[in-house]
């Protein structure tokens, strides 16, 4: 085995660890968040190195992109901009908070040491177990390969996600919706996007938004035989929504009621509906009739993409409309 | 005279269930009655108690004529909730059914115009339901269940007044009974894991285990006896009883004569006779300590009663003492002592309830709570004090009142078993009884009444007190005379107790 890839991998791994450590321990929250986003991007590279391009896409779009955006938005809300309040007062507040923060930012040193030792022991045990796993994997690749033809798609990961383990994916969509319901139950006021948009941003958004919708559609379509699919597409769509929102675009008031909610539940609803409807055709739950798997999956993916995009944008914006 | 059990006749399941229902259903309905629906409530109460009395009468007749009454409901595989009416059950059953009717009448009069009567009578009925359940229990599990229900249904009655004092008394009552319940449960489960059955059997069901599990059986015996001994107010487990006197008079009557204390004593009878079997218990060597505890309780209660000025507390300590007569009769192994103990279960109930009714009348009519306030009360309330006097004579054991019969058999039983000390205990206790009861009679009949009573109520027309308050003690006083005078007639408690004793000791 050549040494260069291994060296690259080592560097990547060490970067990961260093970024994680810095993200968790840097005194400045903003820096911590930025480092965390960087961690997500490096992870994306790692996934590529591990031949997991789907995960790489998802990691960058969701893990680094959406999560990062959510974190930054929350941070912005936590540290109100100086322009909004009296500057002096804010400064006082911040120093006051900083001082109390200093005292209680972390657990006492002895406790920290204890925790660290405990964790090291735990990691040693875990490492030993992982080491024990170092025999050829008995995984399910062959089985997936063998039945790929029946699944209606040509790409194994999509087949697993939307057919073999479609039940998980249905619930995963429900998790997203659930998170949004939870977020909406917590606050009314939108967190972000009420400022006057920057003209440059607005221009870029106008340029990008249609493009992103196109990319999303492409990602859904390509998912049938290559990396891609509803979640990656949905996050692109969500990003488009966020951009539009930031550049001043608003849903018309009449659309923020049930039409919006309909879009939000569409993914789960269509998935569940198809999953149940097949029972009427003497199929098991979520078992697409022979020949119908491809269109069914496509329909589900399209609906899911729309919903995921809408949910992600709504999660970023925050409070309910 | 011993009715043989005829297996050909199918047991009648309806009567035991109806006996339960006759107080359970009225009780549940009463809970939902509005406070001012006096007549509906009264009607339900009386109808329930009359029906129950009739049903019990029917079963008395039936059991005497070899009918069987049993009902069961599966609780767990191999363990059923069993109601079975046996002669011993009927002894307790007829006592509680009869006294419930009288206590209900009395309570209706006593609680007139006081708040929360629907709640009171609801729990009152549930309490009696639990008591008849205890009486009819066909196995130890069923007994345990109704015994615990009894705890739960009497608690609201104890705290009924809603005062801080009542709340405390309630907590103490519960602390005692719940801990006891836990021990009873422990003993029961333990016994079940050893014996594989809990069905009450004449002469017990553990004889086979004595050899292998002697010490476990002794431990189980102790657990069970403590478990029921709290309600029977055995020393040193008696301290809840005097405190529970904060409850209204009908409740005290119920606690002392009908339900709680009696259920405890009845439980001891069951454990000794139908779980262990009196001879097995004797062989294990557990009856002698039990007898000693009983003897000590008899004397302790009497001595404590001497020093109480509060009338109800004096009566309470008297109960502590008197209930242990039953335990003593059980623990002296022998047929005559058994008869004495069992018959006292009924006799003490009838006599003690008379005394509590009278004490309630004094408190309700004249506001008298203390012995020292009772000077000349016999002139103001002659009928009440007549009933009281009969009760007192019975307690002391003077013939021909019922109490004499009990003591006579207990004494004979002791002699039959070759023991002399019970005689001394009985004599000493009788002397002490006289010492704390006769001064009351002296005050009531021979001292000058005061200018004014502490808190006199006028019942109109120069009446002594409300007739609903007067009737029950007169009836029970008459009863305690009658069952003493005609003790040898059929169907008297004495005859019934003899029947039970014969089965325990003479059946193969």
């Amino acid at each position: 085995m050549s040494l260069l890839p291994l060296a690259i991998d080592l560097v990547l791994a060490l970067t990961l660890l260093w970024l994680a450590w810095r993200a968790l321990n840097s005194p400045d929250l903003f820096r911590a968040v930025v480092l965390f986003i960087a961690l997500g991007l490096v992870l994306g590279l790692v996934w590529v190195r591990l031949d997991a391009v789907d995960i790489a896409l998802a990691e960058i779009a969701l893990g680094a992109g959406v999560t990062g955006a959510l974190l930054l938005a929350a941070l912005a809300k936590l540290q109100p901009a100086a322009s909004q309040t009296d500057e002096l007062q804010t400064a006082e507040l911040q120093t006051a908070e900083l001082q109390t923060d200093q005292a209680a930012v972390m657990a006492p040193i002895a406790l920290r040491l204890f925790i660290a030792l405990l964790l090291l022991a735990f990691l040693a045990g875990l490492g030993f177990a992982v080491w024990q796993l170092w025999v050829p994997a008995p995984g399910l690749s062959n089985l997936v390969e063998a039945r790929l033809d029946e699944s209606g798609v040509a790409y194994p990961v999509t087949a697993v996600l939307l057919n073999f383990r479609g039940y998980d994916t249905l619930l995963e969509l429900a998790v997203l919706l659930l998170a949004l319901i939870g977020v909406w139950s917590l606050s009314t006021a939108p967190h972000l996007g009420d400022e006057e948009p920057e003209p440059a941003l607005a221009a870029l958004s106008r340029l990008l938004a249609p493009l992103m919708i196109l990319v999303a559609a492409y990602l859904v379509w390509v998912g049938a035989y290559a990396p891609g699919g509803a979640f990656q597409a949905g996050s692109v769509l969500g990003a488009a929504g966020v951009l539009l929102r930031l550049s001043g675009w608003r849903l018309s008031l009449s659309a923020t009621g049930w039409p919006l909610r309909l879009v939000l539940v569409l993914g789960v609803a269509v998935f569940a509906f198809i999953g149940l409807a097949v029972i009427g055709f003497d199929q098991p739950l979520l078992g697409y009739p022979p020949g119908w798997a491809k269109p069914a999956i496509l329909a589900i993916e399209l609906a899911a993409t729309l919903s995921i995009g809408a949910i992600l944008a709504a999660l970023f914006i925050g409070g309910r409309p | 005279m011993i009715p043989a059990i005829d297996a050909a006749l199918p047991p009648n399941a309806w009567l035991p269930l109806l006996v339960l229902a006759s107080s359970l259903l009225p009780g549940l309905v009463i809970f939902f009655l509005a406070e001012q629906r006096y007549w509906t409530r009264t009607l339900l109460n009386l109808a329930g108690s009359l029906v129950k009395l009739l049903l019990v009468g029917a079963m008395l007749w039936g059991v005497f004529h070899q009918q069987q009454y049993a009902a069961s409901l599966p609780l767990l595989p191999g363990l059923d909730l069993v109601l079975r009416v046996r002669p011993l059950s009927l002894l307790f059953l007829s006592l509680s059914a009869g006294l419930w009717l009288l206590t209900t009448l009395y309570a209706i009069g006593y609680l007139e115009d006081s708040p929360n009567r629907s709640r009171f009578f609801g729990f009152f009925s549930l309490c009696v339901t639990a008591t008849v359940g205890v009486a009819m229990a066909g196995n130890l599990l069923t007994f345990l269940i109704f015994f615990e229900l009894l705890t739960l249904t009497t608690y609201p009655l104890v705290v009924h007044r809603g005062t801080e004092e009542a709340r405390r008394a309630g907590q103490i009552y519960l602390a005692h009974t719940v801990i006891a319940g836990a021990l009873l449960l422990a003993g029961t489960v333990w016994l079940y894991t050893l014996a594989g059955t809990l069905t009450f059997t004449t002469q017990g069901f553990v004889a086979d285990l004595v050899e292998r599990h002697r010490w476990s059986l002794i431990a189980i015996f102790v657990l069970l006896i403590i478990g029921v001994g709290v309600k029977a107010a055995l020393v040193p487990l008696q301290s809840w009883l005097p405190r529970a006197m904060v409850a209204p008079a009908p409740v005290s009557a119920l606690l002392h004569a009908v339900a709680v204390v009696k259920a405890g004593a009845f439980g001891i009878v069951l454990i000794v006779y139908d779980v262990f079997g009196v001879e097995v218990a004797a062989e294990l060597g557990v009856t002698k300590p039990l007898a000693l505890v009983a003897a000590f309780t008899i004397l302790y209660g009497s001595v404590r009663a001497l020093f109480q000025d509060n009338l109800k507390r004096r009566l309470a300590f008297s109960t502590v003492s008197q209930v242990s007569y039953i335990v003593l009769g059980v623990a002296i192994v022998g047929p005559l002592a058994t008869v004495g103990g069992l018959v006292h279960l009924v006799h003490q109930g009838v006599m003690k309830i008379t005394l509590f009714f009278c004490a309630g009348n004094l408190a309700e009519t004249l506001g008298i709570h203390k012995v020292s306030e009772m000077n000349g009360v016999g002139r103001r309330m002659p009928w009440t004090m007549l009933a009281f006097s009969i009760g007192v004579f019975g307690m002391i054991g003077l013939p021909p009142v019922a109490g004499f019969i009990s003591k006579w058999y207990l004494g004979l039983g002791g002699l039959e078993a070759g023991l002399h000390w019970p005689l001394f205990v009985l004599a000493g206790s009788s002397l002490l009884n006289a010492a704390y009861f006769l001064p009351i009679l002296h005050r009531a009949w021979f001292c000058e009444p005061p200018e004014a009573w502490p808190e006199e109520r006028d019942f109109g027309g120069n009446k002594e007190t409300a007739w609903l308050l007067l009737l029950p003690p007169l009836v029970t006083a008459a009863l305690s005379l009658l069952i003493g005078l005609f003790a040898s007639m059929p169907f008297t408690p004495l005859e019934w107790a003899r029947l039970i004793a014969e089965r325990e000791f003479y059946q193969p």
Partner: protein
Amino acid sequence: MPMLLNGADWATALVFVPLLAALACFLVPRAADWLGVLAALLILLATLGLVQDLLSDGPLRVAVGGWGAPLGIDLWADGLSAALLLMTALVGLGVSVYAPGYFAAHPQQQRWFWPLWLLLWTALNGLYLSADLFNLYVMLEVLGLSAAALTALSGSATGLNAAMRYLLVSLLGSAAYLLGVALLYHGYGTVDIALLGQRIEAGAVATTALLVMAAGLLLKTALLPFHFWLPPAHGSAPAPVSALLSALVIKASFYLLLRLWLDLFSGLGGLLAALLPELLGLLGAAAVLWGSVQALRQRRLKLLIAYSTVAQIGYLFLGFPLAGVQAEEVAWRAVLYLALAHGLAKAAMFLSAGNLLQFAGHDRIADLDRAVQRLPLTLTAFVLGGISIMGLPPSGGFVGKWLLLESAFTQGRWGFAIVVLLGGVLAAGYVFKVVGYAFTPTEIAQEGEAVPLRMQWSALLLAFGAILLGFSAPWLWPLLGVGDPFGLPIAEVGAAR
């Protein structure tokens, strides 16, 4: 008679009815009240259908999508899952009937309550029906997120604080569980529990997986010393939510732990398999005592009930050491009885506490002020629930304790027997502490708000359920035996169908 719907259909309905109802309630909040109750009724119907099917045809296995394990996800149902599904359906119906009354004063909370609660219900049913470790992870996450969001619904500072802590704990617990799933998948090439049960072998992989999964699930189940998050969360959530959290949510993670133990890890042998049950038993015993004593010390009703939950969780873990060699079945059945009884009883108690809170505007125990006279139905519900919690007869709690004691005595484990008894005594102490004050007037008479009858009756009926559970053995006993969940691994039995 051929049934119109078979067991697989009922199982499907159990997951999809609440899911679709959640979507509908989210879409049309105005109709949520009756939609929710309708869904609850349908779920109860489906549960009864499933129970009937199990009793007549034995355990059930459904291959979702027709793929079958290990490629696809399987649903399964046996006596263990059916019993918990039934409890969930009953408590769920009770809370669903109760909620509109409680939230009438808080329309904003009500609007989010319904979709969140129905998603929670989806997760509960899905969890009891799933035979797939990873699918169970997703269910756990749905469960945790919806439970935390529901906890935060009150919007109070205490509530948000508790919800935040609960969310983090829950996420950490699921993460630990997922780590175990990862190890097991790579060790044995499947995430189907039954298949894993056949393939798993003693070794570092299995041991580590057991430890991390157990730790995660214990954290979620709030066994002492992981109970720290529970009292504030259960004590500060809206009353119907507290009822759901205490009665149902912790049972789900306990069920999963039990399932993993029974089907995967108990047969591994070795030191750990011998020591872990003892450790869990000790922690359980400590939880019983500590939780009860803490409950006795509380001055607020909801916190008292919450600490009581800490204690009652302890009982569930006594089954691990007691399910030794001889009394295996009895101890597990005891645990099941206790879990079911606690579900019904604790829901009744929390709903009662909600009534008292609504009535008086506070839940200070010392100021209950004649509540027994003014809210008799509610107090009855509280006491009946309390009776089951204390383990007094006749009740489900009594049967559970009886069986547990039977198991302890048979094996001569006196210590556990004493803990069981002592826990009951302490429980009586804290229940009757409340009842005593409810009989006593305070110095200044307090006015009360009217409490709708539906709130009083739903609490009361749940409490009756806890009592009636004591008489349920004729049909519950055979149901618990369906598929022999406490004996052989389910795969060997379920394969027949």
